[in-house]
């Protein structure tokens, strides 16, 4: 079969000593910046780009790609250990991963995250190899109406499935939507809610809220509760996942991979949606949803696989159609062009060594990352044994460096502190910040797509129902609402009559 020939050819390219070396550097650097909050693959790739001028195109791309998905692996490490999301997509891992760490099960959490990510990476590599171009073509069928319906479904599902009190969740979603409106209006260019502060005209940064609410809020809460702290730092259990853990994780990993691949291929979705949806789905299908938020391993396995699948699959539109699905992909595109290669439908035939070499090196990179990260788990876990009074200033320092590294903006640091306080407040009020994050991420995108869809249809709302894919999502939304609301209503009636 031709595919095997191509893969073998890819192996011959990727397994050269030089390219393996670049792969290693990329993965190592990627893990490092994934662990550090704030600076992400985008900034790193931009900074390292001039260095790649002297390397061969294949080597350069392998290294840059390694940085990119290495960051996904690294981001989950700090999410689990200290509730600090290293990457936007690792925010969800904080929820159950950190709780597992508090129960002394950081080792299994990290291990399952690594296994799940590896599985997702392998599967997506195969997907790209087998179905790359047709998948990308299909993704082009998604236009504004489809994106809007998809996101509306996601938002409603999130509001209804969120942990805890439904009223509180809805309130948090609404707050997230409001926070998302801060920024520049997409149609008119007017600044909204910026209060004449120039840094707010682009909106509040996702990282600012994530680090403030999750990491800083957690630190403040911990400091206020000395008892909890002692348990946290002394109880460190086994480093390996139990058989039970593995058994529970298999299905979430598969589901997460599918979801992540789906969102990864669509150019218009952001980085966090894959992991958010995976968490929602896992919570819905779990036998005992109340375990979520208290250290359910499914809440780590699913989202981690999803975000790795998402990261890998974002290469598809870039390589096969030349469409960058995110800022990082745009940079990769630029890097390729600097080396004189124009990605697109012709790259598979014109530069097969590049295409297949990159695909195979993706798999090798994933393998390398598992090999790199698993032994380090012991090291990371022992970090938790550091007395908290020394640990938390270090965390705060990394947070500050990370946030500042994004835009060199002191204002964003102040804003992070404000969200730290708010995060602490919400924790005390038992309002989960997850619906807020989701509203914050989806709100602006929904609004943009809604207005654009209406603009193009010249004000005809039927456009969401006349286009088949959009209609499918709308129907799914209605079904979800019925499924969630009807049992509650029936129960109410039952209470009244019986």
């Amino acid at each position: 079969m031709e595919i095997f020939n191509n893969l073998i050819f890819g192996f011959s390219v990727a397994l050269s000593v030089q390219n393996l070396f670049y792969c290693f550097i990329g993965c190592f650097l990627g893990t490092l910046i994934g662990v550090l909050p704030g600076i992400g693959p985008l900034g790193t790739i931009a900074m390292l780009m001039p260095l790649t001028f002297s390397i061969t195109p294949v080597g350069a791309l392998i290294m840059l790609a390694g940085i990119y998905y290495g960051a996904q692996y690294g981001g989950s490490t700090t999410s689990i250990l200290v509730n600090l999301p290293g990457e936007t997509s690792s925010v969800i891992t904080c929820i159950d991963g950190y709780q597992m760490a508090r129960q002394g099960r950081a080792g299994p959490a990290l291990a399952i995250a690594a296994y799940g990510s590896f599985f997702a990476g392998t599967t997506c590599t195969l997907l790209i190899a087998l179905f790359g171009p047709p998948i990308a073509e299909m993704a082009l069928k998604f236009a504004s109406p489809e994106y809007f319906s998809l996101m509306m479904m996601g938002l409603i599902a999130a509001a209804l499935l969120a942990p805890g009190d439904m009223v509180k969740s809805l309130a948090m979603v609404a707050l997230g939507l409001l926070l998302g409106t801060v920024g520049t209006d997409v149609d008119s260019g007017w600044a909204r809610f910026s209060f004449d502060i120039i840094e707010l005209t682009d909106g509040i940064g996702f990282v600012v809220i994530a680090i403030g609410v999750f990491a800083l809020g957690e630190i403040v809460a911990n400091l206020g509760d000395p008892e909890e702290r002692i348990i946290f730092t002394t109880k460190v259990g086994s480093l390996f996942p139990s058989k039970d853990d593995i058994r529970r994780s298999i299905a979430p990993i598969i589901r997460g991979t599918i979801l992540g691949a789906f969102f990864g291929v669509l150019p218009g979705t952001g980085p966090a949606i894959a992991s958010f949806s995976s968490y929602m789905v896992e919570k819905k299908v779990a036998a005992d949803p109340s375990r979520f938020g208290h250290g359910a391993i499914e809440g780590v396995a699913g989202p981690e696989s999803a975000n790795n699948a998402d990261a890998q699959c974002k290469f598809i539109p870039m390589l096969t159609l030349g469409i960058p699905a995110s800022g990082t992909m745009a940079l990769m595109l630029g890097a390729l062009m600097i080396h004189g290669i124009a990605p697109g439908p012709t790259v598979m035939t014109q530069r097969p060594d590049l295409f297949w070499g990159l695909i195979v090196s993706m798999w090798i990179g994933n393998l390398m990352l598992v090999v790199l990260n698993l032994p380090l788990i012991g090291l990371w876990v022992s970090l938790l044994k550091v007395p908290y009074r020394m640990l938390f200033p270090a965390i705060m320092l990394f947070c500050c460096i990370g946030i500042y590294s994004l835009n060199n903006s002191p204002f964003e640091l102040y804003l992070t502190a404000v969200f730290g306080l708010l995060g602490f407040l919400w924790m005390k009020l038992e309002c989960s910040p997850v619906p807020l994050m989701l509203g914050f991420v989806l709100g602006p995108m929904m609004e943009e797509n809604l207005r654009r869809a209406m603009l193009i249809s010249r004000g005809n709302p039927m456009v969401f129902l006349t286009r088949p894919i959009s209609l499918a999502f709308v129907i799914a939304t209605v079904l979800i609402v019925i499924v969630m609301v009807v049992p509650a209503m029936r129960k109410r009636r039952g209470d009244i009559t019986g």
Partner: protein
Amino acid sequence: MTKIKIVLLSAVILLAAGVANAQNYPTKPINMVVPFAPGGASDLVARIISPLLIKELGQQIIVDNRGGASGNIGVAYAARGTADGYALLLGNIGTMAINPALFPKFQVNPVRDFIAITQVVDAPTALVVHPSVPAKTVKEFIEYAKARPGKLNFGTAGPGSNGRLEMELFMDYTGTDLVHVPYKGGAGAAAIGLLSGEVQCGFQSLASVMTHVNAGKLKVLGVAARKRVKAVPDVPIMSEQGFESMKSGSWQGVYVPVGTPRPIVNRLFAVFTKVMADAEVTKRLNDNGVEVVTSKSPEEFAEFMKNENDKWAKVVKKVGVVGE
């Protein structure tokens, strides 16, 4: 007596240290502000030219990304920089020629607060259309558009983007009526809209659409550049098709804060001109669809910038785009 001598000696040394001497320039690292986040077109140019700049100047060049607010945050920061040649700004058409009209209340005025050194690049924009539009030249497109006013959409990176303003200029000149559809997420997002056929046309940077043009997914009808571009040699430039004022696309240039001594301005002009003439740098830029265009003198660039400011101010006023 000794104490006074020491004080006087220290005073002399300190005074000497304060003098920015063009012959010694540069003696410490130079900060080059790019008013956009890493990964964008401006940033790419900065990173391509900095290795050779470092060699020529003998000092480190720090690429300082300060993105946000359409580049205004970076411009404001650069305007506060010291006027001694250690604070450069890599501005572009947006920040230096369009924003002043869009944001009249903004405290920095590029013409007033910066000294223009030289243009460095021009990224030609092109009038691209979706294959469903049966036009092969700009003239045919105008006819097609005139026949269906208000029916065609054009995609841009935002209401104040140069793609939008160019199209407004086009519509004004040709009497056509197209509907503006903005995309958040920069040029990439608008290109996706074009590919899916959601929007039928638009002025896009040639570089970002080349792969699609080569694959036959998009058509280029005209290029806004000074002369025909190597990537699409058969496509006439806009000025050949009757659009005299569309001779440049998205340009970038180097600036220093007003008050920088003339010898340093001249030194920087010489260095940048030399770096931009380098074959390797030119090749890397061309591969990204960016042409090297330099000015004959700082005054010529300042003149160009003023003309651009006037040109876009007229368009902004007519369209009524408001920044804030």
